């Protein structure tokens, strides 16, 4: 495993643990992140605020299916699961009701300088929505 791949696993661990201060340290000051629905976030604060909001309404975990790196770029295949903790009619991907589950299988490219990511782009390969059992 390369240093970039180890760092990426640490990054995802911080994300899944909602360790916002640790997460911030992975981002360059000029970080730009484009998520699968096209939303573009610029700067550490914008990203952390976005994820903090998502996690206030859903339980979200990301599983690394695979990651590998070359030069200053890392590629990852990710599986994300969202479970709505509350009704979220304005959730970025689609309206959710408490208990709904939403799965995303995505591909992402992470460009880094030293130990910091400065450009991240994600593309959704598959989505699956599972309404709560009594929904």
């Amino acid at each position: 495993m390369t240093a970039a791949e180890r760092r990426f696993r640490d990054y995802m661990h911080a994300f899944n643990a909602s360790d916002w201060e640790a997460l911030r340290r992975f981002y360059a000051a000029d970080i730009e992140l484009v998520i699968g629905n096209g939303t573009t976030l610029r700067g550490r604060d914008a990203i952390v605020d976005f994820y903090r909001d998502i996690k206030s309404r859903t339980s979200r975990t990301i599983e690394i299916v695979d990651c590998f790196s070359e030069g200053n770029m890392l590629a990852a295949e990710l599986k994300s699961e969202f479970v709505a903790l509350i009704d979220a009619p304005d959730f970025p991907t689609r309206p959710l009701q408490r208990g709904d589950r939403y799965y995303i299988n995505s591909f992402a490219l992470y460009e880094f300088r030293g130990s910091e990511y400065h450009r991240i782009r994600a593309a959704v390969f598959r989505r699956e929505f599972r309404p709560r059992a009594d929904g």
Partner: protein
Amino acid sequence: MNFGSQAFRGWFEAYLAAFNRGDFDGFGAYYADDVIFHGQAAQLRGRNAVLDFYRTVRDRLDEQVELVSFVGASGGRRIAAELRTTVLARHDWLEMPTGAMRAGDKRQSVNIVFYDLHEHQFTRVRSARLWPQPRTLR
């Protein structure tokens, strides 16, 4: 596959070059017999099905693919490629799976494509569209 990283990228670039010049034997050799293909316009299984699909496409469109980014996994087991695809409709193709095109329309899109490899061949190809959505250039 025991490529160095430059050789691995070169091997992949040769695939794209064959694709871009319509060398079906050349780029077809990169697909395993039972390749699983999840493209933007088709879900297919098998080299022959993929080549038949691209023959249909080539009858209607000029398609060029440009390598923007390349990440090769160690051991040559997987590739992640950022590809910019430009298509130019030579005829009307109103039933085109990714959206109707009229003769002369030119459309561009960018995708992250993951290729799984075994013994110098693609066993699975999966494409995910990067934002922004495809745009018409004229």
